[in-house]
């Protein structure tokens, strides 16, 4: 089993950080070299939206991958990946708020309420905010592990809303290839968790059965 030394882990983490930053660097380079195409704002919006979904998927891959490989150190990379999902989500949202609505908040909210595909995208982004804000060690301590974990499970809902947002956006052009691909990946990642939970519950049920048996035994003793 691969288990990196602290030095190796540092390197892996730094490498991942640089890789995760590349899509943003690409946008900057394209921007300065006139390679964003005829509709640069659309290019940035789509690219940042795509990368938000990619990073959401990668965060969801961590747990199953860790379970299957026993590479427990992977969990220490998840926070950074999650924050990158938030980073690209923020870029996506900012592009919408800035270049589509020019910071006209009232207009933006009208759009959010009126158009279901924007509504779900907006909800997904708002739901990412508390996750990003509670990503520090201090916040984990303050919330307590259980509550923190409960809160951070809302990323499942964020991923599903993200897919729905993408799906509805593409429905206008009847082009579902990519939403189907993303949807399948997210569905698979979530189903794996259902399977894990079901197996655990199996274990848990067995445990509680023994507990009940013990309790039943105890009264007869008294």
């Amino acid at each position, binding site marked *: 089993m691969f288990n990196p030394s602290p030095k190796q882990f540092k390197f892996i983490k730094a490498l991942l950080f640089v890789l995760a930053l590349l899509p943003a660097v690409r946008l900057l380079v394209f921007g300065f070299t006139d390679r964003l195409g005829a509709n640069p*704002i659309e290019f940035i919006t789509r690219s940042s939206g795509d990368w938000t979904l990619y990073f959401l998927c990668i965060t969801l891959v961590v747990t199953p991958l860790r379970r299957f490989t026993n590479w427990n150190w992977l969990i220490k990379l998840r926070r950074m990946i999650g924050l990158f999902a938030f980073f690209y989500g923020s870029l996506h949202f900012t592009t919408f708020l800035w270049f589509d609505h020019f910071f006209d908040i009232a207009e933006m909210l009208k759009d959010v309420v009126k158009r279901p595909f924007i509504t779900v995208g907006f909800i997904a982004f708002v739901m990412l905010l508390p996750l990003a804000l509670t990503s520090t060690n201090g916040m984990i301590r303050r919330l307590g592990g259980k509550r923190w974990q409960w809160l951070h499970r809302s990323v499942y809902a964020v991923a599903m809303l993200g897919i729905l947002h993408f799906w509805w956006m593409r429905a206008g052009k009847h082009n579902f290839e990519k939403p189907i691909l993303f949807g399948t990946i997210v569905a698979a990642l979530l189903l794996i968790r259902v399977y894990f939970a079901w197996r655990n519950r199996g274990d848990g049920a067995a445990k509680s059965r023994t507990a009940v048996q013990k309790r039943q035994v105890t009264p007869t003793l008294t």
Partner: protein
Amino acid sequence: MPLYRRPNGIDLPFSSEITPQDIFESRRSFIKQIAVGAVGAGSLLQLSSGEAWAQAAGAQKLAAKANPAYVVMDKATSYKDATTYNNFYEFGSDKSDPVENAGNLKTRPWTVAIEGEVKKPMTLDIDSLLKLAPMEERIYRLRCVEGWSMVIPWIGYSLSELIKKVEPTGNARYVEFTTLADNRQMPGLRAPVLEWPYVEGLRMDEAMHPLALLSFGMYGQVLPNQSGAPVRMVLPWKYGFKSAKSIVKIRFLKDQPRTAWNIAAAREYGFYSNVNPDVDHPRWSQATERRIGEDGFFTKKRKTLMFNGYNDVASLYSGMDLKKYF
């Protein structure tokens, strides 16, 4: 708060942005001279001038007389933007797919069958079509249903010229246009995005309106494949998808034709699909649009005009509820 707001907020450019016709023309010939004279410098010009870019790409010229009745005061979109950012689903659904995949389309020989409720059904080859009426250059605004717009100098003649030739019967109330659907030349047909072939249609009076242009070229050249070569419709008061490209059949009908986008999503794409800032697409507002290549990052989107600013056509729809018949 926007960082920069156009002070007038309407769809007209500043007077300083309008190039007078003679300067526009002389600039063109100047650029042409340079492009011809200095092939080495041609690569530089590709970026700055559509004309030079098209010439460098070996496009075929198409002579046309500018029709002063159809000139808008907007700056024309660059040839590069107009020919690299396209919706032509037969070649793929990404904007960059048509320019990448349409290169192998064979536009000659090409025939267009004209049939249905006409006294003189005929099949015309592209050369007879080109000769059917004098070629005009008309600068039209093009508004896509996706919320962006361009300004394109098209070349062609009014569809009515062709319609008069085939003499529709009294039964002809609609016209239907069919796009080529050839699996060997069009990789986009593999995706079941639409019911192929692509079909669009007009009511007879819409088809007879002088604005309805049967187009063979743009920017002084024959149409590039990705823009609907060798012959397409251009209907500037309707969203772009109403204009069928690479047309192989024109049919005159008694009943309203079933059209590709209407079949795919009737709630989103009506039969008329006139540009209308008051009727939102279910997924986005149509009140504003982004002018490709001209509106910078920090420019507020421009207000969309009713019928894309072509108010001549309003009489075609008098008494009609355009919210219902969107």
